[in-house]
């Protein structure tokens, strides 16, 4: 994928995976800037963290767009973060064989956490009956 910068020269690294990764970090960062900071505000500022109870989530997730928001945040943050970790590993692990082993494991871990998060977001249905306190403690 190449983006036109309007300055003429192609990215020096060419059109490989590493170049895509470089752009991906920046593109995902734009989305994450708003998604992540607003997430912090919604869960620590507009509502105290002790009030982010099961009951609050049940109310929020009744609106599917909250689930979409959180899923977008999950996906972008996980990919952005894990790709960053991959770059860090590339910096410090000298052996090619070990890089392959570690980064393959990283990919599997990413997949596992993505699945856990997605399943949580899709399948959450509040239980019938008592949903617990609105604010805890």
């Amino acid at each position, binding site marked *: 994928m190449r983006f036109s910068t309007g300055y003429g020269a192609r990215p020096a690294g060419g059109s490989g995976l590493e170049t895509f990764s470089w752009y991906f970090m920046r593109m995902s960062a734009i989305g994450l800037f708003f998604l992540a*900071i607003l997430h912090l505000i919604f869960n620590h500022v507009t509502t105290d*963290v002790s009030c982010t109870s099961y009951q609050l989530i049940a109310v929020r997730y009744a609106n599917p767009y909250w689930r979409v928001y959180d899923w977008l945040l999950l996906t972008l943050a996980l990919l952005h973060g894990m790709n*960053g970790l991959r770059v860090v590993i590339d910096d410090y692990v000298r052996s090619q064989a070990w890089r392959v082993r570690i980064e393959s494991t990283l990919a599997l871990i990413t997949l596992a956490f993505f699945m856990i998060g997605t399943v949580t977001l899709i399948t959450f249905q509040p239980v019938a009956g008592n949903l617990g306190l*609105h604010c*805890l403690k």
Partner: protein
Amino acid sequence: MYRGQSGMWAWLLHRVAGLGVLLFLLVHIVDISLLGFGPNVYNEGISLFGTTIVRIISLALIAAVLYHAFNGIRIMLVDFVPWCVRYQRAMFWGVLVVTIICFLPMGYFVVAPIFGINPGNMASGM
């Protein structure tokens, strides 16, 4: 120890903050998955976040997210707006200032309940 200048510290802090947030994210995905086990189990887990020690640790998380975000913007400006490179050092100090400015009110909301102060966000729900 390489005697790098502010740019090296900016890079190092960016990396440490990013790794810290990632580590938290992995724990966070697991603790939210407790929703599947019903209100008692989930609320038990969430009540940990309201304790004093965890509130203080979450200050570090908020600072890390804010710094990483604002320094990330500085990086993108340097990458995509050619004349910004000249001001990268000044932008770094700007990043620190903006991080602190945004951190202070958020930190207040997180820490006030430790001292019994209700900063006004306890009853609301969104």
